[in-house]
């Protein structure tokens, strides 16, 4: 009896082990895509050019079927009294700050998803609803989302917003780089409407070159830093300003991709399921040995 059960034990343990190993191979293929194409697109936001007309806010709402109201009403400048953040009613907002160097004009900063090259949201999402596309856009699939809001906790720029007031089908909302429009060959809505082209749409590599050129040519106008060139491993949207970025509420971030540490830990623990399977085997071994000792003890007693 006891001999049989021991053989059983080994057989079953091996089976479970093989099962888990089988799971691991399929999980290696699963997970969200994160493609970094060489000619991925980006936007260079030159805040020294932006006039704070907020037409981008209107165009964004129009393009995303959000209640946009009358374009004329966006002239209202009282909204600048409070700092605003993108939410489920506006995927992009413009904030105004006091003037920077060599100008008496206020600095206006458009805020939206930065479309990271190594997005924390893509890495974090429990169901892999987020995707980094070849053209640089980070989008998400509403049908997959379970509403856990881990993307919001993970995002270094605090961008994803949630429809807290909805009982059914609340959505995560953020700028999607007008993925549908760009697929049809159109420009993102905000870029298209901007009267001063403070938003330049182009390949990311080209934009970095242009940004460097602008700083070089006019060092009095710009702070010598392209925000987004290296932050969190690079972002598709990049900024030029006439003022220290910290004063414009840009978070101070390192150059390492946001999901770097957690992903390496995650992949360390689950390196092809070797650690969990070995732990399983180890515990099984201990269990088998302690049991055998007990049996020997009892046999001696008899």
């Amino acid at each position, binding site marked *: 009896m006891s001999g049989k059960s021991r053989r059983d034990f080994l057989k*079953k343990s091996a089976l479970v082990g093989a099962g888990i190993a089988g799971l691991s191979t399929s999980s290696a293929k699963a997970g969200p895509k994160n493609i970094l194409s060489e000619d991925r697109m980006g936007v260079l936001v030159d805040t020294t050019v932006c006039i704070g007309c907020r037409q981008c806010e209107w165009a964004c709402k129009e393009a995303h079927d959000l209640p946009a109201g009358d374009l004329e009403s966006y002239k209202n400048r009282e909204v600048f009294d409070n700092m605003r953040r993108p939410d489920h009613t506006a995927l992009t907002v413009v904030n105004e700050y006091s003037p920077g160097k060599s100008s008496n004009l206020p600095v206006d900063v458009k805020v939206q998803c930065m479309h990271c090259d190594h997005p924390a949201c893509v890495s974090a999402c*429990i169901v892999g609803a987020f995707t980094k596309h070849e053209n640089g856009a980070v989008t998400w699939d509403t049908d997959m989302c379970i*509403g*856990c809001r881990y993307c919001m906790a993970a995002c270094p720029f*605090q961008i994803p917003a949630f429809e807290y007031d909805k009982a059914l089908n609340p959505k995560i909302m953020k700028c999607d780089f007008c993925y549908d429009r760009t697929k049809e060959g159109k420009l993102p809505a905000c870029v298209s409407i901007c009267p001063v082209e403070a938003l330049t749409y182009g390949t990311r590599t080209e934009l970095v070159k242009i940004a460097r050129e602008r700083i070089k040519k006019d060092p009095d106008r710009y702070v010598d830093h392209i925000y987004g060139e290296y932050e969190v491993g690079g972002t598709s949207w990049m900024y030029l300003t006439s003022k220290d970025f910290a004063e414009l509420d840009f978070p101070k971030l390192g150059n390492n991709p946001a999901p770097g*540490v957690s992903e390496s830990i*995650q992949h360390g623990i689950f390196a092809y399921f070797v650690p969990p399977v070995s732990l399983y085997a180890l515990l*099984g071994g201990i*269990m088998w040995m302690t049991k055998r000792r*007990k049996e020997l003890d009892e046999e001696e007693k008899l």
Partner: protein
Amino acid sequence: MSHDSYNPVPVKHKFFTPGVVGLIIIAVNGLVFLMGRFFFGIGSVTNLNNQYPWGLWIGVDVAAGVALAAGGFTTAALGHIIHKEEYHAIVRSALLTAMLGYTFVALGVFVDIGRWYFIWHPLIMWNGSSALFEVGICVMIYLTVLYIEFLPIVTERFIGRVNLPGILSKLNKPVDKLLRALDRGLSKTMFVFIIAGVVLSTLHQSSLGTLMIIAGPKMHPLWQTPILPLLFLLSAISVGFPMVIFESLIAARSLGLKPEMHILSRLGSMIAPLLGIYLAFKIGDMFIRETFVYLTEFNTASVMFTIEVLFGVIIPLRMFLSTKVLKSPLFIFIASSLVVFGVLINRINNFVVAYTPPYSSSSYFPSYGEISVTLGFVAMLVLAYRFIVLNFPVISLPGKATAPKTKYTIRGIK
């Protein structure tokens, strides 16, 4: 052997007491707010917003809930894997705590996620790089494992006593047969689930720590460290036995039983080294990353960190080193409560206090609704525990040989 005289039986005690009525009121209050959440959205009952996406429900119901249910896997490892049979008397109650704990964790997740009807999505939509996915999938499997581990208690309760009312009484025999078959099958395979339970627990207890690492600089440096998963695992392991002690003593008191001090003292003697290891890593990490400088500031973070380490780790560690404490039901209860409190505060700190989003205009404090729901869940858990120990053979009592057969403990390892 001493443990032979202990056998699990349904405790004979009345269900309703003034305390139970109080718990029911708390539970109903929680349910009212839960209805608000389901009819009017999460925003209507919580203080959560785009800056603070996670609050009390994730910090306490889920994170602390998982940690405090760690008693299940630590005692299973002790009783079944290292095979210390003298602890079998408490394995079942620890298992019940874990099972109920995880059930309420799952419920906590269910109410916190915006699209609760898609809670099954992680089963088919996988994201291997997500720590949350790993936690989610492990908790789901582990919960199933816990139910399977608990099944023998159910079969034991009903084998030979299936007595369905009226027309269904014809089914009595087949049901009984089914139960017996289930029982036989389970007893042969139980060890597979026990080991799986321990492995799964180790995995998700640590991954729960990985969760907040991705928040990076949004998390206060006193807590943000790459060894968070290890700290979470170590703290979960060290809170396992104190939770069992805490829960047995409360149950004994409430049900009018004599506390099984000889087992609890021995359990207690193992806590100090475990807490010591946890403390060593925690302090070591603090010195390597030189985060102790943040303790010189006086703010919520430094105060909460001090409370967590001083009252939750250092003081109980000293207490558990004393034999006087181990022998005294009151002192061992206080020491255990402190560890439980410490881990609870640790999880709240990690998920709520340490989290400082870049654009918040005001800090987060849970709303009345959130607190009500959390307390309601705790009350429901206690009520469920009480109901099950009164009706199923969970708690071992000395001397009385009851139940059909003792072999139904867990046969696979006997």
